[in-house]
């Protein structure tokens, strides 16, 4: 009788399907996975440490670089945490624009997820289509912030500037095309036998285990847990919008795929409602000690210039205390825990990254599966290594 031997192989850290610098040590019995040991790193930019040496405003560009597929969601979580620490309110218009941009970000991030997930499993057309559609959202990013990736658009107290003319028309135009795009993806995948066989019953994690592993976001909802921070702990006025929180039943890769697709359709719905409710008004709180002055004052008056300079160089001080604020980012619960000692810099900033916590479950989800399914499990978790290895 042939004897069996466990074989250990390395997957990554430079494998296209490991989505960055992820290295998996896989112990295999034939093609069956016995154990997966993930090694993350060593990418770190030291964002938590850096933020302790920068003023609150200076940290915003660092947050863009965490989950680089969803910069504005990271910005949002951070500015909300600082605003909570300060106890200031944000004008209505700024809140609505934040919601529009955060939901566009969700679309943008989910488009990369569907593109890479499909490519991992072997469907190349979806990859090309989804990246093409993502370009349109990048154009909107560029329109409002000047940058396509690292937007740095939100500010403590509101936004860096108001939306430009023609913004709402451009967003509506892009949104009009999306339902058709989603139908295309579904047409290519949902009825595709190969796709179904690779996703149904793959990477199953029960609701109880998912909560125990701390999984959040679409990956948790795919396991049938009806929980979404936008609805259950609303921020930025999310309670005013009507949207559905999709949940799965079978806790597998296919359910997580369906959940994210429905989520994208719901995001389009939220953006439409937000565009309809957009009213003129200020986009920055009336807090001269905290917020930057309007650009025209900076360029045209010495007082404005000095005001800008003081906030940019010295920052503002915050009350002593600690807060935790989280948002429903495309990957799950993204939280910022800020400890202030009353100075102009955070004493400690801790980022609770959804990808880091979700990735931990890979050991559980992949055990007993075939090695080819491991690739599907990585894709279904929708990880971004920039966020995992801060």
């Amino acid at each position: 009788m042939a004897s069996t031997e466990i074989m250990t192989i390395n997957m990554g850290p430079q494998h296209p399907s490991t989505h960055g610098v992820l290295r998996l040590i896989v112990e295999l019995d034939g093609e069956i996975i016995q154990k997966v040991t993930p090694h993350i790193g060593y990418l770190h930019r030291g964002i938590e440490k850096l933020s302790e040496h920068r003023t609150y405003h200076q940290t915003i560009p660092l947050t863009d670089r965490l989950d680089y597929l969803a910069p504005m969601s990271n910005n949002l979580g951070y500015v909300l945490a600082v605003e909570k620490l300060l106890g200031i309110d944000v004008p209505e218009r700024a809140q609505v624009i934040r919601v529009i941009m955060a939901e566009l970000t969700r679309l943008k991030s989910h488009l990369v997820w569907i593109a890479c997930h499909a490519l991992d499993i072997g469907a190349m057309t979806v990859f090309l289509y989804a990246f093409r559609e993502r370009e349109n959202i990048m154009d909107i990013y560029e329109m409002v912030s000047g940058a396509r990736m690292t937007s740095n658009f939100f500010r403590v107290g509101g936004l860096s500037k108001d939306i430009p003319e023609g913004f709402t028309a451009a967003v509506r135009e892009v949104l009009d095309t999306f339902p058709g795009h989603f139908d295309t993806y579904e047409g290519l995948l949902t009825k595709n036998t190969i796709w179904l066989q690779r996703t149904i019953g793959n990477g199953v994690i029960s609701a109880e285990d998912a909560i125990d592993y701390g999984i959040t976001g679409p990956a948790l909802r795919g396991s049938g847990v009806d929980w979404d921070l936008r609805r259950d702990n609303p921020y930025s006025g999310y309670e005013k919008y009507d949207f559905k929180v999709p949940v799965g039943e079978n806790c597998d890769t296919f359910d997580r795929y369906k959940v994210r697709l429905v989520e994208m359709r719901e995001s389009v719905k939220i953006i439409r409602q937000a565009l309809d409710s957009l009213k003129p008004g200020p986009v920055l709180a009336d807090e001269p000690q905290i917020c930057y002055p309007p650009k025209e004052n900076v360029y045209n008056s010495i007082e404005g210039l000095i005001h800008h300079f003081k906030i940019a160089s010295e920052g503002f001080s915050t009350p002593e205390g600690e807060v935790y604020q989280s948002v429903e980012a495309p990957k799950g619960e993204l939280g910022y825990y800020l400890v202030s000692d009353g100075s102009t810099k955070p004493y400690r900033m801790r980022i609770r990254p959804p990808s880091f916590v979700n990735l931990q479950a890979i050991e559980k989800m992949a055990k007993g599966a075939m090695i080819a399914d491991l690739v599907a499990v990585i894709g279904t978790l929708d990880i971004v290594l920039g966020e995992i290895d801060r």
Partner: protein
Amino acid sequence: MAENNRAVIKLREKFASSILEVKEFRGEVTVIVRKEDIVALCKFLKEELRYNLLTDVTAVDYLGKDPRFMVVYNIYSIPNKDRLRIKAPVTEGECTIDTVCGVWTTANWLEREAYDLMGIIFKNHPDLRRIMMTDDWVGHPLRKDYPLQGPDREPYKGRLS
């Protein structure tokens, strides 16, 4: 306000001697507890008060103060939509605390990260290895006495020209 919190009332009944302080800031309740009782307390919070999701475990370094470290647990109850923060002081001399891996599996990686970057040792942890830094790395980068630019490097002083 914080005293009326459901979890605080229950904790006071059950763990009266463990609770060092209860604080509230911006509507968030923080309970500071003795580190010796952390596992029993967390178990009670999860099983009796339904704080089923461990959102985060981290540590704060209050260099120059005694106790130097605070281990921070942000927990959440999905059924009750309720958040709570538990903190436990840890001294520099005895920089250890029991692991809560047995209560929430999430704690495994989160505690490894706190160990790696802050140097807090989680007793009885099933796999306490470094997670961000290499195994042979010296020092814990998020400690306040660890240089910002890393060891053996002169701080950048700006352009000399």
